């Protein structure tokens, strides 16, 4: 039905090895660019934006890109998170070929997409699939901050909805890691309705009595906060992550309201009843394992009762 809006263009296949091979090394993120290239040799060292400590990049990778001095959580790619999180070789990617189109012929969108794809080495702002943690199977989706700030367009919404629907078929729990600036304006109303699409899919998951854990990471805002990120049976956040509906800059501009120190942090959100657990990245794997285990259907637990 949308054929009349399709644009006639030619395509070539991108080399997708980069995104499909899992590496045990944690890929680095743009955030490292905070370090002035003049001060430090390229890529070997990185300066912690919180405590100022200069860290050996390799050590930072080995610590899940959490500062060894102050525990600042650097942003991390979806692939990097997978490497930290799931059992080795357990990840099976889904819908990796789903690709975006410039449905509204929005000024500059094609260029932005190409740039994002080439820079990040991934096609879109979310990776989905199934995996295991400590042997327990689950469905996972991870926003890719490196791709247009994890913003949600048609592809992100569709991949998440499909992953949830497949979880229902497979009777598996779902864990989604959010990092997003919100809905992607370049796809207009189609982006906006991805909020409804993903939320509706989660409604079906809930109806099927399947667990959904939402993990919020820095930053999670806008349309993602106002849809799947806030609908977890259990909501976890990484420490100090910024989470909210409206970004602090916009609140300041439109309301002429200065946010108090610490507003919109994970800790602020927890105090206001919006987050169950704050879990450090290094503890995420065992914590998720516990929660998944206690929700396993037909699990035996060596029960004495």
């Amino acid at each position: 039905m949308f054929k009349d809006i399709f644009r006639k263009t030619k395509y070539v296949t991108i080399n997708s090895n980069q995104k499909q091979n899992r590496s045990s090394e944690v890929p680095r993120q743009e955030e490292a660019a905070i370090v002035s290239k003049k001060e430090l040799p390229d890529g070997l060292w990185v300066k912690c934006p919180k405590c100022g400590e200069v860290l050996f990049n390799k050590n930072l990778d080995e610590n899940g890109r959490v500062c060894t001095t102050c525990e600042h959580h650097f942003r991390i790619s979806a692939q990097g998170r997978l490497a930290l999180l799931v059992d080795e070789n357990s990840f099976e990617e889904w819908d990796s070929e789903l690709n975006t189109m410039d449905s509204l012929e929005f000024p500059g969108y094609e260029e932005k997409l190409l740039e994002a794809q080439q820079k990040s080495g991934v096609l879109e702002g979310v990776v989905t699939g199934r995996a295991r943690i400590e042997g327990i199977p689950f469905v996972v989706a991870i926003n890719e901050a490196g791709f247009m700030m994890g913003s949600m367009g048609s592809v992100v919404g569709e991949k998440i909805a499909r992953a949830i629907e497949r979880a229902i078929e497979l009777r598996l729990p779902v864990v989604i890691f959010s990092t997003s600036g919100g809905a992607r304006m370049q796809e207009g109303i189609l982006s906006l309705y991805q909020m409804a699409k993903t939320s509706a899919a989660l409604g079906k998951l809930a109806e099927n009595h399947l667990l959904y854990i939402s993990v919020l990471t820095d930053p999670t805002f806008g349309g993602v906060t106002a849809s799947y990120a806030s609908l977890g049976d259990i909501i976890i956040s990484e420490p100090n992550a910024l989470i909210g509906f409206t970004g602090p800059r916009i609140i300041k501009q439109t309301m002429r309201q200065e946010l108090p120190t610490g507003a919109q942090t994970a800790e602020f959100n927890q105090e206001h009843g919006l987050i169950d657990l704050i879990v450090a990245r290094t503890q995420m794997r065992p914590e998720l394992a516990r929660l998944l285990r206690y929700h396993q259907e037909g699990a035996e637990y060596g029960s004495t009762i």
Partner: protein
Amino acid sequence: MAQLFEFEKPIAELEHRISELQKFSADKGIDLSQEVDTLEKKVLLLKKEIYGNLEPWQKVQIARHSERPNFYDYAPLLFEDFIELKGDRLFADDHSIAGGIALFHGVPVTVVAQVKGKDTKENIKRNFGMPHPEGYRKAIRLMDQAEKFGRPILTFIDTPGAACDLGAEERGQGEAIARCLLAMSGYHVPVISTVIGEGGSGGALALGVCNVLLMLENSFYSVIAPESCASILWKDTTKAKEAAAALKFTAKDLLRLGVADELVREPQGGAHNNLHQTADELSEVISKYLVRLRSESPEVLRETRYQKLRKIGMFRESAEINLTKKLD
């Protein structure tokens, strides 16, 4: 008289000339009826020309018109009876969302609507139509009752967006909107949503998960305000006009994109020029769809709403990148 937009001034000038001619003719007893007639025809043509070809930005201006009818204007014309029910039972009653039970063509329905004020005082009371979490939670509470009692749900969208202040953040604005989306997607009763003015991003969408989406001719429904979009794209809020065109948010656009189901005609120049006519038109279209939906089973209503959402979005199933444009 209603506030005039720039693009309406040629019409107003012609109309002014006509009334001058008429006055002159009456004063001096000279017959100018032929001249007047010509001019009046010209006005009609001009109106058709201007109002028939409104640009997106012009529709934005009409949709935001200070005299644009709001929900409270339509309610007594659409419904034989309307009982407003208040509060989220948790924190507060939000005046930017009104809701309750109404009688529509003899059928009890649940109604939820965003409401902007008409003057400064009312706008302060209604937070310029920007709901807080308590507004969305009131909406859920009322719609849950519609589900409980098998009443159809009619929502009316008219908001620049959800409230964006510290209180909204503290009380979980994101959570409240997300819960609205989730709740609406699960109901087994007919849900018909109508954008009557401004449909501003997530705050509007929260009332827009429906079986049928109607849009008044000059309403718009956008992922982002055109000014904010211009500010992000071109660092220039004055380019809102260009952003308005880029965002494809008019009723016609949404019909074409498979999001809206029908455009509800407004009187020439916009709903504020004839409230009754607009209400009649709206009543007729809603009624038409409600008849259809009421003949469906609860399960079908729910599943078709889900499938409607599932289909929104465009993508291709191939990991190819576009070659027509290339980064250096």
